């Protein structure tokens, strides 16, 4: 897939940083405002999609590969499961093992913050992996123009 014009490339590389920052913000404040792990992960993935669309498939293939996405995805999922299992040995499955602070503070809500971060990592890495796999596969399958 070819990239786009230099104007688009320069704009995209600046905007992507803000998009990913917004995604991380939505993930981290998931226990205070609407959003959380899944929505934040999708926004981060949208930033990556923006980069791939504006630069084309080849530069991206040199920088990252699907394998790294799989490892990050697995790590995020394991972190979520560890949160649940630590709760298991401290009480019930998924029990809250951190204190709940005052409402509307950043460090409140117990283990929800860690769960949100883990899910955000998993969703971002997983969806990026899916997108890269489909883009690279479609490029191989479609007839040459």
């Amino acid at each position, binding site marked *: 897939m070819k990239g786009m014009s230099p104007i688009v490339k320069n704009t995209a590389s600046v905007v992507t940083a803000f998009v990913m920052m917004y995604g991380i913000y939505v993930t981290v404040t998931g226990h205070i405002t609407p959003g959380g792990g899944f929505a934040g992960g999708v926004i981060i993935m949208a930033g990556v999609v923006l980069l791939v669309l504006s630069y084309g498939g080849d530069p991206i293939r040199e920088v990252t590969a699907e394998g790294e996405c799989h490892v990050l995805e697995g790590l995020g999922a394991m972190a979520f499961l560890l949160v649940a299992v630590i709760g298991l040995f401290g009480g019930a499955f998924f029990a809250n093992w951190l204190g709940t602070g005052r409402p*509307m503070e950043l460090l409140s809500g117990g283990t929800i913050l860690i769960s949100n971060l883990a899910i955000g990592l998993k969703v971002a890495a997983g969806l990026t992996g899916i997108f890269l*796999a*489909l883009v690279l596969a479609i490029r191989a399958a479609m007839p040459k123009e």
Partner: protein
Amino acid sequence: MGVAIYVLAFAFLLLGIYALVAKKNVVRIILGIAIVEYAVNLLLVLVGYRQGGIAPIVTREHPPADLVARAVDPLPQAMVLTSIVIGLGVTALAVAMATRLYEKYGTFDMNDIRDLRG
């Protein structure tokens, strides 16, 4: 609002199922899957509606006691989040399969993709 909105949501669901079963192009079938997912999520969110309700977010103006009295039901919203993720997984898998089907058969027409009979 009453019954009409639920009837419309069901009509949306039936439209999606029509697209799933009657269309011959694989891409249109995948769009039918997407429409069906949207319709079910819409139905689920509508179940939690309360007349004149506010959003179920705890803020300084709306402490939890206020929310219990006036907010729309947040449980269907949590169910819809999960349902959206499941729909995403199914759609991604279907698109990946459609790509491979095109590689193997060279066409997107379901009438030509009929190796298995009997």
